[in-house]
Structures are given as structure tokens and as C-alpha cells.
């Protein structure tokens, strides 16, 4: 790992990370501020007949909307904020990872960087570690903001351990999108369209997960979505990490990262 390159990568993506952080934290605080109003105004009672309508019920199920969950601040957080956080941190992660190698080639700075005295392993290591560090920071700050919001806007006490255990899924989802981004970045031959492709992957897999939850007949398509492996049943007693899901995340991240590393080692740098 080359520390000079690692530091420069962190510096290069600093502003982008700050913008995403402001957006994510702002949305978390804004949404959690609505919790009290949500309870006070009796909105839950108004929502109940809507959730039970035969036409809307499957869709609401897809979104995880349940009265029991919404009336608990932790459940409210998971239903309303988790998808948003996963989507936004996922987009940040995939976009950062995609630009790690692809930008050097398409902005034609690769020739400068790859003629410095470093092995390809050192270049890959420094860039990936910088990306992981940024992902760790953005997820940590999002979790911290979520925790502070819960503390500020809670109306009654709640279990803290499930909240922190659940936040591990956020980090794993981000890393999964980052590893998909790494593959794209390593194999991409053209720069055009990579941004749109990255956003489409995050949004597409999110909607696949939603569709898979609507009915039994579509359940199987959820398996290809990282969102499927986030255990949102946070209110169950003794909530712990689902080892099967966690293992799936870790295996996917390792396989995709290894693939992009091996591809990068043998890649011709033409720009």
C-alpha cells in the first residue's frame, strides 16, 4: 500500500463525501423530527385502513409498513430511514469505487500515476483502502446521526443494541456496491455512461427487492439484490446478525474485489 497515494485519494474524494454526508444526515434528522408529529397527530390511526386495503397491502408489505413497527421509534427509523440511508450510501460507494480506476484512465491521468514507482498491487491496495475508509466514515457518521436523532426525538426508551447491530448491514451493503463498482471500474472500456449505470444498479436492485416482497411468486428475484440481505426485523427479541446474510455479503465482497484485483493486475493501460 502506498501512503502517498492513499492520502491523495482521501483528499480527492473529501468534498464529494462531505456533500453526500450533508444530504444523508440532513434527511435523517428531518425525517426523525417528524416522528413526534407522526404519533401526536394520530396519523397512525389514519394510516391503518390504508395499509389494510387489498390493493395497497402487498405494496406496503414490500416497504415493510406495519402499524406496530411504525409506532416504535426504532421501527420507524428502520422503515423510513434505512432504505434512504442504504440507497444514498450505496450510491456514494458505487460511484466512488467506479471512479477509482476508470477516472484515471478517462481523464488520462493514469499514465502519470502508473509510471510512479509502485506495483499494481500497491496502487490497487491504496485506492481500495481509501475507498473503504470513505465508506466507513460516511456510514459511521450516518449511524451516529441516526443514534443522536433517536435520542433527541424518542418518546420512550428503546433497545440500543439492535440499532447498532442493524447498522452493520449498512456498512456491508455499501461495501457490496463498492465491490460491484470496482469490477466496473477495472473492466470499463469507455467512461461514458458509468455514472448512469452505477445509479441504475443501486436503484434497480432496490426495486427488485421491493418487488420480491410483494408476493410469493416474485420472491426469488430478491436474491440478487444486496437489499434482500438486510435483516430489518429489528423489533424481534434477541435481534442478532443473520450469519447467512452476513456470510453472503462477505463472500460477495471478497469475490468481486478479488476479481477486479486480478483483472487490474493484467490490464493494459491504454489512455
Amino acid at each position, binding site marked *: 500500500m502506498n501512503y*502517498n497515494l492513499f492520502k*491523495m485519494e482521501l483528499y480527492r474524494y473529501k468534498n464529494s463525501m462531505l456533500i453526500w454526508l450533508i444530504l444523508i444526515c440532513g434527511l435523517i434528522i428531518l425525517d426523525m423530527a417528524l416522528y413526534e408529529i407522526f404519533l401526536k397527530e394520530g396519523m397512525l390511526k389514519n394510516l391503518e385502513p390504508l395499509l389494510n386495503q387489498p390493493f395497497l397491502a402487498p405494496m406496503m408489505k414490500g416497504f415493510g409498513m406495519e402499524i406496530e413497527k411504525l409506532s416504535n421509534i426504532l421501527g420507524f427509523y428502520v422503515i423510513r430511514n434505512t432504505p434512504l440511508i442504504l440507497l444514498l450510501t450505496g450510491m456514494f460507494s458505487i460511484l466512488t469505487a467506479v471512479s477509482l480506476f476508470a477516472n484515471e484512465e478517462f481523464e*488520462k*491521468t493514469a*499514465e*502519470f500515476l502508473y509510471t510512479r514507482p509502485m*506495483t499494481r498491487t500497491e496502487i490497487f491496495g491504496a485506492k481500495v483502502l481509501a475507498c473503504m475508509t470513505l465508506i466507513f466514515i460516511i456510514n459511521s457518521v450516518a449511524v451516529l446521526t441516526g443514534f443522536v436523532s433517536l435520542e433527541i426525538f424518542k418518546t420512550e426508551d428503546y433497545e440500543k443494541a439492535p440499532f447498532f447491530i442493524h447498522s452493520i448491514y449498512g456498512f456491508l451493503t455499501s461495501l457490496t456496491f463498492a465491490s460491484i463498482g470496482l469490477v466496473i471500474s477495472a473492466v470499463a472500456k469507455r467512461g461514458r455512461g458509468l455514472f448512469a449505470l452505477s445509479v441504475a444498479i443501486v436503484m434497480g436492485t432496490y426495486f427488485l427487492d421491493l418487488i420480491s416482497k410483494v408476493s410469493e411468486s416474485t420472491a426469488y428475484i430478491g436474491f440478487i439484490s444486496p437489499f434482500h440481505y438486510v435483516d430489518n426485523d429489528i423489533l424481534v427479541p434477541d435481534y442478532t446478525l443473520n450469519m447467512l446474510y452476513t456470510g453472503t455479503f462477505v463472500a460477495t465482497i471478497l469475490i468481486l474485489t478479488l476479481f477486479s484485483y486480478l483483472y487490474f493486475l493484467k490490464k493494459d493501460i491504454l489512455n
Partner: protein
Amino acid sequence: MEKSKAIETISLSKNYGKTTGIKNLDLTVERGEIFGFIGPNGAGKSTTIRLLFNLIFPNSGSGKVLGYDIIKQSKDIKSKTGYLPAEVNYYYKMTVKELLEYSQRFYGVNDSKRLNELADDLDLKTNLKIRDLSLGNKKKVSLIQSLLHKPELLILDEPTSGLDPLIQSKVFEIFKKENERGCTIFFSSHVLNDVQKICSRVAIIQKGSIIKLESIDALRKKMLKKISVSLPDNQSDINPDLPAIVDFKRVNNHMNFLFNGDMNELISYLANLKIENISIEEPTLEEIFLHYYQNAESGNEL
């Protein structure tokens, strides 16, 4: 023990799909020399350089730079080599100083004195952002970054493009100084005049293969002479048919050609003609270059 060559390639080949980049390239550059590598665009100059830096992988063959294998020991090569690319693209948000400091940190160097000296020599302001620089100034940045770590080998790809004549002469002075310090220079260009000014040996590359490798002096002196003959009006239809005459051109009663045979044979032939004027000169490198190219194109022996 014999010191390794600065650059040595053995049957090095690279294809881009069906297109040939270079084909069975055998090249040897001695330590301490200034070696010219000339050829038109697409001849394989940049492909060769990219292979030496392991930016791309060869399909076959092998190569060593400063004794290090171009694939397995690329990091060692890069740590002792400076590279000035043909196209200059840097991180546009950085200032010149930030970029140069960033670059030298990769070599474990922090020599602000040398950085400032080189910037002053080339009249380059280091507080400017890269995005605000002209092509010529970007080229200066590129030159400085290639020299900061005092490399043993300097690989230059079209180093003078975009530079005004005054800066070009300064740049040549810097190259000569570096060479006096012991630095080997590999000078790739299609500007023959530049190669002529500074190089001791030259390789001419065409369609991925070296078609001639000679010292600049030998290339000029070995065979070719540039002959201009003016004839009186009544002999303006004469066409000399000596086999050693090449690149023959006639404008009215003036004949211009290159001659690569026995001079006595030419004199004997011309003695039978009534001549108004004759001049025998050394051809320019440009003319030699074109001669080799046209011969290679037509498949004639060089």
C-alpha cells in the same frame, strides 16, 4: 562485471487485436548515450515506451530496463526512470507545486531547491493551477516531474511539442546537462531536427519494426549524398539510369537526387554531360528518413 544496458528488448511484440503495435522489436540502448527513436505517428514508438513502463503487456518477447525485467521488476524501473509523456494530462485542480511535490514524494524525495531551480530555468510559475496552464507550460511541468528524482534514465516522448523555440533550446540544455551527469536519454520523436541536434544514435521505426539503427553521423556519411545538377537547356531531357541513384526529382533542367553508390561511377557518368552547375551535400536527416521510409514501403533493400 559488465554493467547492464539502459534498455534491451528481445523480440518484443504487442498487438492490439488484429492491429500490430510492435513486432519482434530488438532494441539496445547503451548507458550514458542519447538515443533517438524516430518514426511517424502510429509506427510503434509510444507502444514501445508503454511496454517499457509496464503500462501494457507484451504478447511475446522480453525486455529489460537498467537491468530490471519490464514485467516483474517494473517498480524498480520506475524508481530510477523519468518519463515525459507525449500527451500531458494531470490532476487539473492541483497547483503546479502541489503536483510536483506529490510526484516527488513517490520517489521519497523532498527537494524543493531542485524543484524551484528547474521551475526558474523554465520560467514556470508554480502557484498556478494545472487547469489554467497552456500546453507549453503543462509540458514544462511534465519535464520537471521527470527530472526531480535525478533519474538514471530519461524516457522522452515527443518532448518538444508545444514548446516555443526559446524554451526548446533551454530544454535541450537541460537534457545535455542531465546526460553529462550520467543520465541515459531515450528520445522518441517524429521531429527529426530535434533528434539530429541531440542524439548520438538513432533507430528508425516503421509499422512496429526497426528498419534502421545507426549513429547519426554514420547514417549521414555511410552511403547517401545529396546531388543537385543543373544542365543546359538542350540537355534537359536527360534521365540518368544509374542504379545507385534514388529519390530522383527533376524540375525543368535541374536534377536532384540521393546517391548511395561509388562516387567515381557517378563522376564518370556526369563527365559525359555538359553541366552548368553541380553540388554535392550531406542530406538532412529528414531526407535520409524519407529515403528509408520509401524504400521500406516498396520492399527494397535498405
